[in-house]
C-alpha cells in the first residue's frame, strides 16, 4: 500500500478506492452481492480481495416469481440474521454506507 509508516496513523490518507472502505471500518455498511443478495452489517475487517468479516448481519435475498396466469412479476425477499459472517470477496459487487442515513 502507499503509506508505510511504523507508528499508528491517526489521520487517514485516502489514496485509493480501498481506503474509502477503510473509512467505514466498524460502521454499519450495505453490501450488494451477486445473485440478488444484499447484506447489512457492521464491517469488522476487509482485505484487498474484498473478503469481509461482518458482524450482526442481515442478509436479504430477492427473488422474482412470475405468475403463470397473469404474468406479473412478484418480488419476494427472504431475510436472515447471522451474528458473525465471513464473506468471500468474489461475490461482492459494491460496498456502501447504509442507504437510510447515507453520507
Amino acid at each position, binding site marked *: 500500500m502507499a503509506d508505510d509508516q*511504523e507508528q499508528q496513523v491517526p489521520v487517514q490518507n485516502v489514496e485509493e478506492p480501498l481506503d474509502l472502505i477503510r473509512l467505514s471500518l466498524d460502521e454499519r455498511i450495505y453490501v450488494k452481492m451477486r*445473485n440478488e443478495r444484499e447484506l447489512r452489517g457492521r464491517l*469488522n*475487517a*476487509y*482485505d*484487498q*480481495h474484498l*473478503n*469481509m*468479516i461482518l*458482524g450482526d448481519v442481515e442478509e436479504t435475498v430477492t427473488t422474482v416469481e412470475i405468475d403463470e396466469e397473469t404474468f406479473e412479476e412478484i418480488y419476494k425477499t427472504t431475510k436472515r440474521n*447471522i*451474528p*458473525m*459472517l*465471513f*464473506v*468471500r470477496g*468474489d*461475490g461482492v459487487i459494491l460496498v456502501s454506507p447504509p442507504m437510510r442515513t447515507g453520507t
Partner: protein
Amino acid sequence: KFLIRNTLISLLKAVEGMVTTVELRNENAVTGLIQNVDPFMNIVMEDVVFKSYRGISHNFSSFFVQGMNIRYVHIPDEIDMRAAIDQEVNREWRMRDKMTREIRDAARKRITKRQLQADKETTLRRRQAELEEKKKINQEET
C-alpha cells in the same frame, strides 16, 4: 504463510477446530468441524451435514470445499473476532518492526564488518612498513 499474509484468510484460520457452517455459491450449505483452511480458502471438514438448496441432507465423514465455491463462512459466537483482528494487526506490526530491526541490524553488522576489515588492512600495512624499515636499518648497520 506468505500467501495468506495481508489477507483475511489468516483470520479465517481462527475457525479451524470449530464446528460451523460454510455456504457455497451454488446455494448448498455444509455444517461440520473445520479441520483446515488453506491460503486459497479451500476448507477440509469432518463429520459434515450437507444441506442442498432443495432441503435434502446428506452426511459425510470428510468433506473438501474448494475456496472458489464458497460464498459465506459462518463464524461461531465463541470466537471473539474483534480480539482476533486486533491480535493479527499487532502481529503484523510486530513482524514489520521485527523485520525492519533485523534489516537495520544486518546492515549495521555489514558496516562494522567492513570497518573491521579496513582497520585490519591498515594495521597490516603499517606493520609491513615497520618490518621494511627494520630490515633497511639492519642492512645499513651490516
